[in-house]
């Protein structure tokens, strides 16, 4: 038996450092939210890492960023990025040399600005039309954005290239991602850069229920025909009764490895009795096609609903993060995809589980570390927290 044990390789796993406060000390009536299209609230650039979120510390919902040196713990005092009456759902990407580009909804329109630890560029309006739910992607100096533009009764998905010169950002012409006439809402897109352009996924209601659709583009101007991402089970009592049109799916997030792999995670209610489960799909052809849907969570999560999925691609496998209340209150849970289709047992980490509520994770793989941010809610208020993990 001892010989057998010695012969077994030690199983590597993620080891996380102590968590750090991002948004300052919790305060009564302070409500931080780590929400965005594609959950793109974390980025790295040069020597810095940044988290962007929204809270009401200035009396109304506004967008803030907190920077941290990558080589030492501790976040700087939050920097306010928004300048209007209210702002929501910020996303951020790294531009290199310590500069970042943030985009968010401000007073009903999507806006963007460049910032760093020492300077802040001008805020530009990306779209003069009513717009929301912006997502960003960058690779090899290319930058692209996609967002929902109000078109009559519906939000319709458009995308545009961006260019950055120093601390100035400029938006190119926006194009519809889907050229067919607007039929219903297109919501909460997530964009990823690949070695052949961009992949995008979004919620689409044209079928009378929500479908997740994907498309790819070389230049962001012309997109491929939408392809379904989530599989729809056939049969079942509701379908037999002629009721409803499909199970719920929502809040898809994409991550790319900068090469040909794109991973998607989303909330899926195909097994509706226990609420949403976390499902995933992986593409190895730049997002042109995705493999079969895979359930990312383990069986111990089966009886509880899962919420707020985020995803990162690492050399050690695709990592999904979400929150669920399997231990009565919400905690952050993660799972790693090993090889093809095999997801690990769910795991959590100190500070992201235990007393209080821990929810709304964001993930980033950068420079050999898995970066995780989330919202903690305790008796003394709420704060954004952060921890970084290594494959050990």
């Amino acid at each position, binding site marked *: 038996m001892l010989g057998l044990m010695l012969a077994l390789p030690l199983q590597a796993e993620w080891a996380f450092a102590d968590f750090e406060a991002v948004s300052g000390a919790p305060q009564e009536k302070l409500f931080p939210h780590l929400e965005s299209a594609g959950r793109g609230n974390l980025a790295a650039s040069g020597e810095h890492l940044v988290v962007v979120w929204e809270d009401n510390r200035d009396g109304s919902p506004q967008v803030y960023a907190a920077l941290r040196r990558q080589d030492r713990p501790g976040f700087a005092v939050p920097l306010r990025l928004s300048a209007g009456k209210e702002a929501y759902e910020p996303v951020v990407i790294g531009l290199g040399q310590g500069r970042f580009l943030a985009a968010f909804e401000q007073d009903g329109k999507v806006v963007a600005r460049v910032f760093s630890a020492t300077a802040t560029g001008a805020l530009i309006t990306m779209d003069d039309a009513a717009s929301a739910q912006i997502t960003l992607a960058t690779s090899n100096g290319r930058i692209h954005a996609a967002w929902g533009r109000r078109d009559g009764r519906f939000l319709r998905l458009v995308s545009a290239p961006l260019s950055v010169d120093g601390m100035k950002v400029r938006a190119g012409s926006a194009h519809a991602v889907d050229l067919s006439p607007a039929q219903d809402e297109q919501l909460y897109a997530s964009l990823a850069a690949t070695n052949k352009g961009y992949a995008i996924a979004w919620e689409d209601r044209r079928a*009378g229920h929500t479908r997740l659709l994907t498309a790819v583009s070389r230049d962001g101007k012309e997109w491929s025909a939408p392809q379904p991402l989530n599989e729809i089970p056939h049969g079942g009592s509701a379908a037999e009764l002629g*009721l409803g049109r499909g199970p719920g799916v929502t809040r898809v997030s994409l991550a790319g490895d900068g090469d040909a792999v794109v991973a998607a995670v989303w909330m899926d209610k195909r097994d509706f009795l226990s609420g949403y489960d976390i499902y995933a799909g992986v593409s190895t052809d730049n997002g042109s096609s995705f493999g079969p849907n895979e359930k990312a969570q383990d069986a111990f999560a089966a009886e509880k609903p899962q919420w707020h999925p985020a995803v990162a691609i690492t050399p050690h496998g695709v990592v999904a993060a979400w929150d669920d209340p399997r231990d009565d209150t919400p905690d952050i849970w993660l799972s790693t995809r090993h090889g093809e289709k095999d997801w690990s047992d769910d795991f959590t980490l100190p500070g992201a589980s235990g007393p209080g509520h821990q929810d709304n994770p964001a993930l980033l793989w950068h420079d050999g570390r898995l970066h995780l941010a989330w919202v903690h809610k305790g008796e003394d208020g709420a704060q954004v927290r952060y921890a970084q993990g290594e494959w050990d």
Partner: protein
Amino acid sequence: MKALPRLLALAALLLAGTVHADPPTGYPFVPYDEGLRQAQASGKNIFLYFGRYGCAWCDKTNKESFSDAGLKQLYSDNYVLVYVDAESGTRLTLPSGERITEMELGARLNVFATPVFLYLEPDGTAIFKAPGFKTVQDFRDFDRFVRGGHYKKMKLLEFLAENPS
């Protein structure tokens, strides 16, 4: 004559809307913020319907229960009716002042399946939650339990055992 195709198209659009599990037609459902304001002004309890676009059991409840004229009258007269789309990014303001999306409200209230029906006091305090398809009689029983104030003294099942339909 040109107006006829437009009218037919509009009628088709409206009819199509009824099978998408939006709120039942003919009921005065309002958004969450407006419902809280109306409830605080009127002193009425809130009936909060969590639906989902394309939800089968919402569709069934709309067709088989909310189509009842007596139920429509009972709930329209005595409740502030609020509809929330459980997958929507539409924002609302909680009594605490916090701004969240309709979907986030569902996450906070553990709305794990739709439909879910919540009964709230006029200040937004939850009374009880009823998940899944409910019959006309279920809704009438819930109304007796809520408007009679019995929820302050006993659980729903205790009330129904002592006061059957």
